[in-house]
């Protein structure tokens, strides 16, 4: 993995690293990708027609509206203003 790829993946992941952290992470990610690369040796193709046949998934329940949690309970883990979640300005 090179710095440009790491930067790209960090942007996708919404993560930042300092220069020292980036250096350490680059080394570790290179080792991890090296391990993952070994699966390229295995000659096998994914058959999406078979997917989910082996592991059973329950039927989806009907989408019936029902009472939800009280608003104040859902907002107990943040500091709401006028019953709204507060975020920095998104558009100038």
């Amino acid at each position: 993995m090179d710095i440009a790829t790491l930067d790209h993946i960090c942007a996708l992941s919404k993560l930042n690293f300092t220069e020292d952290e980036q250096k350490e992470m680059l080394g570790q990610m290179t080792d991890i990708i090296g391990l993952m690369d070994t699966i390229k040796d295995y000659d096998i193709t994914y058959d999406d027609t078979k997917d989910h046949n082996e592991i059973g998934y329950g039927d989806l329940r009907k989408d019936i509206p029902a009472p939800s949690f009280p608003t104040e309970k859902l907002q107990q883990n943040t500091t709401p203003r006028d019953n709204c979640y507060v975020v920095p300005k998104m558009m100038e």
Partner: protein
Amino acid sequence: MDLKNITAAKLRKMLDSREISAAEAASEFLSEIKKNDGKVLSFITVTEDEAMKNAEAAQKRIDAGNAAPLTGIPLALKDNLCTDGIRTTCSSKMLGDFVPPYDATAVEKLKAQDYTLLGKVSMDEFAMGGSTQTSAFAKTKNPYDTECVPGGSSGGSAAAVSAGFCTAALGSDTGGSIRQPSSFCGVTGLKPTYGRVSRYGLVAFASSLDQIGPIARSAEDCGLILNAIAGADPHDATSKDVPFTDFNEKIGKSVSGMKIAIPKEFYGDAVDEEVRASVMNAAHEYEKMGAQLVDCSISTLKYAVQAYYLISSAEAASNLSRYDGIKYGLRGEGHSFDEMIRDSRNRGFGAEVKRRILLGNYALSSGYYDAYYRKALALKQQIIAEYNAVFDKADVILTPTAPSVAYKIGVQDNDPVKMYTADICTVTVNIAGLPAINTTCGYNAAGMPIGMSIVGKRFDEATIIQTADAFERTFTPVRCTL
């Protein structure tokens, strides 16, 4: 009264015969936690008031003569199971102050039996790790040797049971997180079939692999707890409505005639000699009981760790994208929306969680998706096919649970590849969605526990509980002393 080594089944009898009250049982365990958890660091939150309230309600039910199997039984919960009104941290700074507005379905089902909640126990951050050393709050130690790790990610659950701080605990298992710490701490841990227990309220790591299960002192206790928490749930579309009556229904029945598969790849050089020998000794014990050993092969094992880390990290990257500091979780600072989210995630997540998010997004990104993620899905299909072939000629599969016994704290720090490859014995079970149980089969020269895993057919937990119980009846465990 010393309850440190008591099983839930035995405590049930004591409670029902009024030999002990629910409040006395709760107090006994709370006092043990106060006295000795400073050495082990298994608990993040001790819920003393809640425990005594639970015990009071349980006693009323016992006195009314309608106790359920877990009424008044003191349990601990892994700190990734949502508990209404009780802090649930996932051992992450990101959720350090998070108080869920609802209970996980598994917790709700325990409450329906009037269990006693002693507290929330530590784990690897967001269940990512095999040592409980990535916890931001309690880096748990192994009760057999406090210089060693307890395993992970359910290390707090396994250590608390092993140390005698609770009768049993719930954990979660995505790639071995119930079985491996159970092996390291000398207790019994059951990972149910994918879909057997609702994942609603379990903080998501890798949704196609995660499963909640019990860690206890016996296979029978695991069955008692699974009886309580299993079943389909409208809140989890992947939970499955497969009928069951009692997971302990085969306990005590002979294993004579049972076919036990021994996959050769699990007994190679990657596994310590003492571990191999101990598991093979157990296999020969089963032979003495009349079981038949069957040679078999899971040839994809050499690619299993890679497939597991690609699938689980891809799912983790997606699941953890919800942590932006807005509705809940650590809130960072920043002048723009993007700056605020990045600061929240930088400060909230630890190094291992960041590595998994990076790996997941790498595997899913344009140009890499086919080479990594799709290939891992192909391997998953191959692994499932290989297990199906083995189960055509065997009832259960016997493997070591981990390549080694518990190792010294710090040995795997900053070496993620070493940490990942240590999961070799457990990950295929999650990939194939199968049930498996760890039980102790011996001790190494230093006295550290060695665990073996019995893997079963999908939704056949009763047979693996029967098989583990049959061995436990022949084996005298050496409990730890703190």
